[in-house]
């Protein structure tokens, strides 16, 4: 009887320890998955921000007037002309599968599509909005605009 009780005790302890291990592993897996997902989001965000900075620093869009080097400024004429370029394949390497739009909101509303390379099949799309100025060389005025960059994967 005593021996039976001993073996029962051992079995219960083994079961409890096994359950504890399984629970620990499940919690660890959940935390790990959540962290990986968060890391992935952060990586995506930094990739987008980097690409956004590349766009703003490209001479093809950047304002060419003096003393505004530090401003996120897009030349309206350059942006419009860029879209007219038929052979955009050379920019695919830099800009990838994305759509770049400039939405002027103040003083008058106007939309300019700068680049459009949206794939037909994609699993995810993500947009980034950046406040910028749009310079109109014809009027010598700066408008307030939103640079909307949509990335596709």
């Amino acid at each position, binding site marked *: 009887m005593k021996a039976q009780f001993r073996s029962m005790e051992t079995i219960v302890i083994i079961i409890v320890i096994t359950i504890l291990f399984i629970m620990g592993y499940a919690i660890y897996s959940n935390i790990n998955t959540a962290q990986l997902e968060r890391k992935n989001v952060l990586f995506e965000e930094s990739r987008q921000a980097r690409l956004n900075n590349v766009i703003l620093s490209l001479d093809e869009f950047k304002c060419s007037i003096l003393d505004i080097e530090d401003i996120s400024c897009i030349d309206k004429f350059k942006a419009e002309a860029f879209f007219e370029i038929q052979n955009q394949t050379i920019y695919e390497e830099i800009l990838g599968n994305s759509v770049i739009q400039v939405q002027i909101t103040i003083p008058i509303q106007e939309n300019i599509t700068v680049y459009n390379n949206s794939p037909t099949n994609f699993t995810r799309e993500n947009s980034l909005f*950046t*406040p910028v100025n749009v310079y109109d060389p014809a009027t010598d005025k700066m408008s307030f605009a939103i640079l909307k960059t949509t990335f596709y994967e």
Partner: protein
Amino acid sequence: MNKHGQTEIIGLAFVIMLAVIGLLFYVSLSNNEIRTPDIREEQLAGSMITAMINTDLQDGKYIDLIRDCAARSRNCDMTRDYSEQMLSILDLYGQPYWYRVEGTTVEIQKECDASKETVAVATQQITLFGGSEYATIILSLCRKL
């Protein structure tokens, strides 16, 4: 010491070992915890203010409206309206913000105030018409809930 006592001690040691492993696990995980970087918010706040003060409105510059409001208490409502219009980009991110021009009535708050945790602050000092006085524009971005 009898055999039963030895088994008890081994059991106790095993429990302590498990507790130590658990503790180490917890410490290593909490150290690896990623905090949302505020760099993006700082960049957003900075570029927001820069874009705002460089904007030309239909009848003058936005910066002149602020000067007018700060120095002469004129056009403050118009300044607030334009500011609100430009700051609406932050709503696209669901970003709580607090925009104010010190010394004026221009103040726009969207779920953000001094009691909330701030993730980024951008300030810009602009000289008023006389050149000796300043107006300070402050844009604070609060942490999203």
